[in-house]
């Protein structure tokens, strides 16, 4: 088949093109190589930790490295509770805003609001952390009558706020990409605007909205500075919803606060790298799940359309 269209043209690309192809190929592979190398580096630096620290110590619920307590569970728990809290805040608000912007708001309003939301996404997290420390946490303490406002809740609210622009921006794009004919068909059949949004447009944009959620979660779990400033950093293992109101210590804050102090190749240093690996694996799982979901959605959509 191909030869018919290529008739008269040398099937071998010229040398110059070969060079360009090779360069582009190298650029493509470099990302994979870098990720691989980072992972290898993390593994090599963290492996001694498994030899130097007993497993029962690593899986205990006490983190106090200067006295050789290396329980990582409170740190994992701290990161998870804050991330879950942030997702519960960012998803409804983010997707809601996206629906409003894409389906309801008039064109001029949408064209002003979307750039503003995106600027919000570019705010340095230290600035938000400062606001959280000086404004959010004192009010949380008074409103909810907590011992201190420096708590997982303050972290979750702040991270939710940080993740919202990501969620809004991506799910708005996904909603925008839904063909107009879908909405027209639904409205023509007598559905109300709300029914159209909820039953037709949103399901059609599902994969994009899911990607937005995953990226938002990824943003939340990796955030460091803002979290370090508002969560109180007490390594308490969260065991239930009540712990949302007590201080927690996240994995990222631990690495950031302690990496500067450790001597190279000490046990503490290796354990911090182990925490790095755990973070890496968690974000890997989130990303793989996201792309798997999107991939399956695409397949089923193709089936419906064909």
């Amino acid at each position: 088949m191909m030869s018919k269209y290529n008739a008269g043209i040398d099937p071998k690309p010229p040398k110059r093109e070969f060079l360009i192809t090779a360069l582009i190929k190298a650029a493509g592979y470099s990302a994979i190589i870098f990720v691989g190398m980072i992972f290898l580096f993390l593994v090599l630096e963290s492996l001694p930790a498994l030899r130097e620290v007993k497993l029962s110590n690593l899986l205990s619920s006490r983190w106090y490295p200067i006295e050789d307590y290396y329980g990582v569970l409170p740190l994992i728990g701290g990161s998870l509770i804050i991330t879950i809290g942030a997702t519960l805040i960012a998803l409804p608000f983010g997707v809601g805003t996206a629906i409003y912007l894409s389906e309801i708001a008039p064109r001029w309003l949408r064209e002003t609001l979307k750039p503003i939301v995106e600027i919000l996404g570019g705010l340095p997290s230290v600035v938000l952390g400062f606001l959280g420390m000086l404004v959010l946490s004192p009010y949380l303490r008074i409103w909810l009558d907590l011992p201190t406002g420096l708590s997982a809740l303050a972290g979750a609210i702040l991270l939710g706020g940080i993740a919202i622009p990501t969620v809004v921006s991506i799910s708005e794009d996904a909603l925008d990409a839904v063909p107009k004919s879908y909405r027209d068909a639904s409205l023509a059949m007598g559905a109300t605007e709300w029914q159209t949004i909820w039953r037709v447009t949103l399901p059609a944009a599902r994969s994009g909205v899911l990607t937005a959620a995953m990226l938002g979660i990824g943003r939340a779990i990796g955030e460091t500075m803002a979290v370090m400033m508002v969560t109180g950093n007490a390594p308490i293992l969260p065991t239930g919803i009540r712990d949302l109101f007590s201080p927690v210590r996240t994995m990222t804050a631990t690495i950031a606060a302690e990496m500067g102090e450790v001597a190279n190749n000490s046990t503490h240093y290796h354990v911090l790298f182990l925490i790095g690996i755990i973070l890496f694996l968690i974000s890997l799982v989130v990303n793989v799940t996201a792309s798997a979901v999107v991939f399956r959605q695409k397949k089923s959509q193709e089936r419906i359309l064909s």
Partner: protein
Amino acid sequence: MKYDRPLLILVFVFILAGCTGRGSSSENPSEQIKTIENKGSDTIVNLALAWAEEYQVIDPSVRLSVTGGGSGTGIAALINGTVDIANASRKMKEEERQTAIENGSDPVEFVIARDAIAVIVNLENPVDHLTLQQISDIYSGAIDNWQEVGGEDRPIVRLSRETNSGTHVYFLEEVIRLGDSDNKTLFSQNTLLLPSSEGIGAEIKQNPNAIGYDGLGYVTDEMKVIGVASSDEDLFIFPSAKTVNSGRYPIARDLYMYTNGEPDGFIKEYLDWIRSSDAQEIVTELGFVPIIK
């Protein structure tokens, strides 16, 4: 730590140092620019910056760069050979000395000032004196309500610096463990570990449940300083230069600088100047306690 005010001042000093350095070298190209890298304790950083600024006037040919980060950070940097002088608000640990020797360096210690650690609470808190034993019980978690030490019925929120802070280690050893090296008491697990002195100050100012500790130089009018007694029979003493030097305030410590090997040349000159009466006056101005009276 990124939002520390000292960091801004540091940038300023860098610029200052840059200007004077360039000025003098263009006038006298044969003169070598001498740099001293100085890093470590956040307790000392403001003091070290004030010294560096003053020394710029005395000897413009020396460039000083001062950074904080914590005593542990400074000592680690000295061991790794990236700084000339490490600031520490605690003595070097035996393991650290061991690591240093393994890495081929030989840390030499200088006492450069003294510091009282003030125990601070919110202005609304009626409690104004505690014994060392009570402070130890509060931080270890044995006392959980202000009522138990004569205050209102409020939960106690414990604030501390991060574990890389020399103040944290000193407080653990001398207050929580009451100086007993066999005592293995730890900070209560729900102690809030805040990354900076500013973080502790901000929380103390607005939260009547909170108790914290920090170097006397960081205490402002918006916090209440607690009088401390060594035991039930002793008087409650408030921290000041006088009570520290007379040895009556119980939570006081020496502040250190460490160099790699016995210093010589301009680093020695700088350290000698720091321990002179001129430089020690700056110590008093910043709320620390001078080593010479």
